[in-house]
């Protein structure tokens, strides 16, 4: 409107149904259009990096569970990889495969949650959420079977994993994998061909590939923009170099592409899991590591393709049992860098969908 209207500030959050936690988005509006967006975070800041400097390397593993509390296994894995790199520890083959299995199950659980909450943002009244929770629940049951915890697993340890899988794990996992393709087809039937979802999410929140790369986006956000980049392929860790899978990439970089990429990653994870369960070798699952590990002075940066993007741990050791510096490169936080460019010019409903398609977890944003 050429009408001189007062700029209108809408605070989405810190307590808002669609921010997945305590996240605040200050939107300056001109009528229904967003002219400026500013994110305010820190409501869940626990100063994990400082706390970790006072604890030993092993004691820090539980902290990582609380980062992205929807994918604790991946966080454990990234941290333990960093410590192993720092201390030069080799993990036995079975441990590597168990890590892949757990990480991929965690990816399915996380993407189920991400897709479901994206659909919730689009206004579906809980149906996809509940459907996806059904499978997520079974995956959490598998975790419980293995390590006794469902969310904050603390399962991957320095030098391997904390427990070998119990005998009932294999049949349960195989049964789940057998029904997963059918379930994924159900989700696709419910969501992918839905005209309203198409209308809501296509050409909304477009992230150009150049901007995506320049602003350090990673994970499905980067791949949704059409960038073929996946650390599992680019810098294979654990046992990924022995497994066969494809990388889904989007075409336009809009919300719908990010959603499609996640949807396809569900299928690819099932594929990886089937291979990994078949190839799971015998032998020890972990090596013994002293409780008060003293890595030599130096630094290490290890990264994995966590469900939300590139999760990296940068550790600096001064030879003591505590890390000198413990830095988390958290994908949720860094994926928010292009948020402003994505939402300016949209309306509030589109901004909410865009935020939902980035898939943040506030525990990881604030740390």
């Amino acid at each position, binding site marked *: 409107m050429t009408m001189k209207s007062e700029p209108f500030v809408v605070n989405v959050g810190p307590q808002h149904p669609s921010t997945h936690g305590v996240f605040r988005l200050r939107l300056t509006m001109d009528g229904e259009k967003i002219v400026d967006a500013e994110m305010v*975070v*820190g409501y869940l*800041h626990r*100063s994990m*990096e*400082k706390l970790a400097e006072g604890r030993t390397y092993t004691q820090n593993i539980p902290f990582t569970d609380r980062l992205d509390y929807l994918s604790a296994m991946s966080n454990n894995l990234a941290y333990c990889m960093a410590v192993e790199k720092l201390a030069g520890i080799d993990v036995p083959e079975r441990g590597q495969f168990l890590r892949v299995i757990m990480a991929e199950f965690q990816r399915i659980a996380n993407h189920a949650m991400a897709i479901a909450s994206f659909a919730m943002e689009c206004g579906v009244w809980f149906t996809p959420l509940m459907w996806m929770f059904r499978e997520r629940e079974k995956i959490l049951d598998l975790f419980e079977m293995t390590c006794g915890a469902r969310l904050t697993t603390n399962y991957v340890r320095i030098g391997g994993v904390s427990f070998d899988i119990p005998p009932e794990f294999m049949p349960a996992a195989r049964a789940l994998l057998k029904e997963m393709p059918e379930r994924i087809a159900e989700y696709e039937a419910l969501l992918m061909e839905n005209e309203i979802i198409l209308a809501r999410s296509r050409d909304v929140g477009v992230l150009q590939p150049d*901007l995506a*790369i*320049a*602003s*350090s*986006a990673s994970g499905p956000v980067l791949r949704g923009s059409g*960038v073929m*980049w996946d*650390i599992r392929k*680019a*810098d*294979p860790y654990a046992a990924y*170099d022995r497994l066969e899978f494809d990388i889904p990439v989007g075409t336009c970089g809009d919300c719908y592409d990010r959603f499609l990429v996640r949807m396809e990653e569900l299928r690819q994870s099932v594929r990886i899991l089937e291979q990994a369960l078949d190839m799971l070798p015998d032998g020890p699952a972990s090596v013994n590591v002293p409780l008060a590990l003293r890595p030599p002075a130096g*630094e290490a*940066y290890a*990264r994995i393709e966590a469900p939300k993007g*590139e999760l*990296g741990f*940068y550790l*600096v050791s001064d030879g003591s049992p505590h890390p*000198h*510096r413990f*830095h988390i*490169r958290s994908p949720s*936080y*860094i994926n*928010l*860098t*292009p948020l402003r460019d994505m939402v300016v010019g949209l309306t509030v409903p589109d901004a909410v969908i865009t935020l939902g398609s980035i898939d943040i977890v506030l525990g990881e944003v*604030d*740390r």
Partner: protein
Amino acid sequence: MSQLLDGLEIGERIGKRIPEAVVEATPQWVVVHPQKLVEVATYLRDDSELNFRFLSGVTAVDHLDHFEVVYHLQSFSPNHMLTLKTRALDHDNPEVPSLVSVWRGAELQEREAYDLMGVRFAGHPDLRRVFLWEGFPGHPLRKDWLEMPGGLSPGLGRFPRED
């Protein structure tokens, strides 16, 4: 497999293009002079052979007498990594140039480093605290920050409120 580039070799290349930029080079990393940082970063990004288009991470490390800002660079094609560092020698008032103009991805990460470490990034478009609120005493990730100064204890009521 992502290849970690040899810091010595890269340091040599940087030194050829931009003299006096490299302070120290080891096989793991290259340390450049803060004054030349933006120039070096632009070179690393735009050089067709190096092609470091992706800034993976930015963080600062408190080495008790000085601060070190660490940049993890990633190139998609060819697939290789580099650890770039720069040092802010003034421990009380560290300042390095901001790389937001080179990589947009540095924006939030530099804000985080400023908030928690107190490293000022000169030229950053919006250098404010991000996790802690304006008025928080000090920068808690510094090694000399041991507790809340002045007998303060955590809790919002004791601190100046935002705006």
